[in-house]
């Protein structure tokens, strides 16, 4: 068993009431599966952006044990 680090930012972090959680897994999961497992089996909302190891990815990208996955709302910098 290894862990996937899961991070949430901004309004999503506040809605979920957590900024980071660790998910134990022994096999690769898709980004969508990671979301469902840490969010009570709710499916990943379409507007939520996703990154693995600090690179933007799609919801069907595979996440390996040891990776860092991030979920966040549309960005509003600049």
């Amino acid at each position, binding site marked *: 068993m290894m862990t996937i680090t899961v*991070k949430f*930012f*901004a*309004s999503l972090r*506040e809605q979920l009431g957590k900024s980071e959680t660790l998910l134990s897994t022994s096999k690769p999961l898709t980004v969508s599966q990671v979301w469902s497992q840490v969010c009570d089996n709710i499916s990943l909302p379409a507007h939520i*952006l996703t*990154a693995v190891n*600090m*690179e*933007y990815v799609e919801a069907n990208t595979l996440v390996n044990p040891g990776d860092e996955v*991030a979920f*966040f*709302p*549309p*960005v*509003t*910098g*600049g």
Partner: protein
Amino acid sequence: MKVELTSQPFNPWTTLQAYETTLSAQIGKYGAVTTFTGTMRDFNQGEDVQAMYLEHYPGMTEKYLQQLSHTALQRWDILDTLVIHRVGEIHPGETIVLVAAWASHRAPAFEACRYLIEELKHRAPFWKRETLGGEKMRWVESNG
């Protein structure tokens, strides 16, 4: 090329002046500099804004802006780029972002500068939370 996140207020013009002294080898080579400065307004969507908090994704935000700068340097005939962005608490009138592109000619300088700020606005992991009157907070939901 430089990318920087800073939690301290900065003046865009003294920052540009200081940065250009590091480009001394390029003097006489670049003929065009285009800059864009984004400044915090005291109103947004019809409401007075008293302060703002800029959240980011430490690590990814820097990485994204570095990649963006490299892409601009590859895509346009430009000599250098500068991107500086505030994080944390910020107040009206303060600079949020500064982007600049140095080139031999004006067309690539303008295009690369515009590209940098558009991509930054639409893709760089920053999130603005505004403090309105009465300490009411709201997350800005989309970038114009």
